[in-house]
């Protein structure tokens, strides 16, 4: 299981790298999606117990994985989805106004 945490770290840092390096607006939003996915994955890993079953108790089980993290993950997914949607709408708007997706050229605000 330890490798999963490493994967979370790699994804998180990859997303961070994308956000701070990439000049393309869509790439930046993709970076944000990656970071968000890594956090959801982390939530799942935190709640997971080896050999556990899903938290749907139609009969009694010995080990059940943590339902709280799954609920949190659902909320996070929804929040992330709505934020991403708003961001993308703004990307389209920005492209319409500035005719470019390059962050270096979207710089009317200075000082």
């Amino acid at each position, binding site marked *: 299981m330890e490798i999963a945490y490493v994967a979370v770290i790699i994804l998180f840092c990859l997303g961070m*790298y994308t956000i701070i390096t990439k000049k393309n607006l869509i790439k930046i939003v993709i970076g944000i*999606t990656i970071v968000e996915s890594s956090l959801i994955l982390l939530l*799942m890993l935190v709640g997971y117990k080896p050999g556990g079953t899903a938290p749907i108790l139609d009969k009694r089980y010995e080990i059940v994985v943590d339902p709280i993290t*799954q609920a949190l993950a659902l909320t996070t997914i929804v929040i992330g989805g709505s934020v991403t949607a708003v961001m993308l709408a703004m990307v*389209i708007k920005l492209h319409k106004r500035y005719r470019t*997706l390059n962050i270096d050229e979207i710089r009317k605000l200075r000082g």
Partner: protein
Amino acid sequence: MIDIIFHLLFLFLIITAFFMVFTKDLSNSVITLPLFGAILVIIFVILQAPGVALAAAIMTAGLTTAFFVITINKTEYGRNE
């Protein structure tokens, strides 16, 4: 056995993520997004989270990708980064 699959899945996940970030073609990276989401969904299923898996399948792999596709369509379809 499941361990090997599990490790492979993580490997794929990271590879797709890297591909998404470093590919030059914007549409390539956006089309890789559902793949990334799908692998994530399988991982969630293995991690015993069917509800989250459903939501992720619909949201990350489905709708978000659709949003991205629309965005690319509206902005610079097919142009390189």
